[in-house]
């Protein structure tokens, strides 16, 4: 369920692209560095670098602000210039405080988030891989209907689904349990689309036929032959569903009342809320340090898995 702001879950990816080329692009991340605009290598431009540098500064400045201010005590936060260090270097104290505040609830939120990511994004990836394989390599009754319904429903704003989903879940007693967050996360129409596009080219039909002639069952064929070939596409889908689940706010906000089940996003929001509640303790230092801690894993994942998500986006984007 895509409930966050613009395109944060690239849920629908209208298939105006040629499947053939898109699939090929997924498999060829190596080409990333090869071409640069025109045939001959153009001269580098200091002016252009500086101008584009403005966008770079804009993108990085808030993250730098966050990292710097995670090293300050709450008193220094209020009394010092935001973009430079001041007073004691309190980063490690802050991290320790964040992890131990309120009986160590931050750790609990972190574990909840990991739980939602592993089951939600993991499940979404699995369903998308299975479904994409089916769409790419099988002809079955109702295939066109499946396609139309899935692509059509993608355009439905996630929040239009949220209220009725909440009411349905509350009638069967699922709200306020981890399942209320995990089950809606299991569907990634974008993931299904991407896997389908990818599987068309990644798995040669001849290979599947050969396996069938050898008497291999369908499940065995899938696990032994198809799955390894689908690796790169699977990583891309896993990464993007992971971001969507890790960053999810709206869904847990409506489903969960008990802070023990909060993911990090809701927890940080609640801490921030405390300052404006009567009698609440202002813990801005913890909000800032907690924010930093909660984005580090994703940034590391993105940096480590660059070639996968970049080619994945290439597969999803459209040639026109």
């Amino acid at each position, binding site marked *: *369920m895509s409930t966050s*702001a*613009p*395109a944060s879950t*690239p849920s*629908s*990816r209208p*298939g*105006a692209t*040629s*499947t*053939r080329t898109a699939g090929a*692009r997924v498999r060829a991340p190596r080409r*990333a560095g090869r*071409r640069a605009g025109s*045939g001959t290598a153009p001269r*580098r431009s200091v002016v*252009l670098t500086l*101008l584009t540098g403005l*966008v*770079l500064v804009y*993108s*990085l400045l*808030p993250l730098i602000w966050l990292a710097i*201010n995670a090293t300050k005590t709450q008193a220094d936060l*209020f009394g010092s210039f*935001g973009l430079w260090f001041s007073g004691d270097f309190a980063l490690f104290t802050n991290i320790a405080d964040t992890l131990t505040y309120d009986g160590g609830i931050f750790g609990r939120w972190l574990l909840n988030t990991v739980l939602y990511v592993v089951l939600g994004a993991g499940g979404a990836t699995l*369903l998308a891989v299975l*479904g994409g*394989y*089916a769409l*790419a390599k099988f*002809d*079955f009754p*109702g295939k066109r209907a499946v396609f*139309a*319904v899935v692509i*059509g429903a993608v355009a439905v704003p996630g929040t*239009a*689904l949220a*209220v*009725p989903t909440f009411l349905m879940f509350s009638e069967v007693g699922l709200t306020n349990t981890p399942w209320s967050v995990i*089950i809606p996360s299991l569907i990634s129409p974008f993931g299904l689309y991407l896997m389908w596009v990818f599987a068309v080219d990644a798995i040669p039909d001849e290979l599947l036929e050969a396996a*069938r002639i050898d008497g291999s069952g369908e499940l065995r064929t899938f696990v032994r032959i198809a799955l390894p070939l689908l690796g790169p596409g699977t990583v891309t889908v896993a990464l993007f569903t992971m*971001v969507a689940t890790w960053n999810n*706010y709206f869904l847990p906000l*409506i489903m969960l009342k008990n802070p023990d089940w909060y993911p990090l*996003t809701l927890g*940080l*929001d609640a801490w*921030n809320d405390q300052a*404006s509640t009567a009698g609440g303790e202002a813990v*801005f230092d913890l909000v*800032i340090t907690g*924010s930093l801690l909660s984005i580090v894993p994703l*940034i590391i994942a993105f940096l480590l898995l660059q070639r996968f998500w970049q080619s994945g*986006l290439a597969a999803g*984007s*459209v040639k*026109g």
Partner: protein
Amino acid sequence: MTTSAAPAPVAARPSPRRSRPRRSWTGWAFIGPFMAVFALVFLAPIAYSVYLSLFQDRLIGGNTFVGLDNYVRALTDAQFWSGLGRVSLFLVVQVPVMLFLALLAALAVDSGRLYGRDFFRISIFLPYAVPAVVASLMWGFMYGTRFGLVGNVNDALGVSLPDPLSPDLVLASIGNIVTWEFVGYNMLIFYSALRVVPISLYEAAEIDGAGQLRTITAIKLPAIRGAMVIATIFSIIGSFQLFNEPSILQKLAPNAITSDFTPNLFTYSLAFAGQQHNYAATVAIVMGLITMVVAYTVQLRGMRKGA
């Protein structure tokens, strides 16, 4: 529907020349799990919200069928229209600014004339990995006059900048947060589309003596028209759904962001603060329909010009 037009030809394309198993039910063993969950979390809620929108909980008579009464109420509701007006304004200002910035960055990175191109590409994309909650908190603090950068600048220069969290400016401040989050994502979509332009086209342009600017307008921009349509549609859907950022900033700027600030905030407060589930479902459906109509129109126009 924003997307139903495109997929059909694609779905048809891969099949004919390939030898594949005869039509059988085997495929359902693989697509079945997805469809089962899909029915549960997509189709059932849609059906249920249509059902809800046709009823009303009344003090006398309980749950009553009221036909289209809820829809009439939504369409004559000043709160709904003010929220819709706000996100429409947001849409026509923020989306072009964001996409233009993303386009410039993509062209710059693709031009090969930057020092440290990969560093640029990855750094500008990084904010996409930051949760909307963290982005809103971070910017919200920076906007703040207490320990934010605005306060710092005021102190340092002895000026008093307008408060970004005041009612007049808060929409622009939210626009800045959303722009920050998604410039890099859109840049990467454009960049991916630019990368598949055949080199021969550039060589031909060079032989014809086309300059940089001419290459951009004659080759690059037409080549990424499809990507621009997609990015625009996503941004439209995102704008109409605006919720996370104002919802979080609300705590830092309670006077500037009302409970009907955007249609989604309105739906949320109707459903969970007001317990008006039927009306909330109706507003959500109306918003969904408006979103789909606008997105579909953009797609039709965008694709027609491209064809």
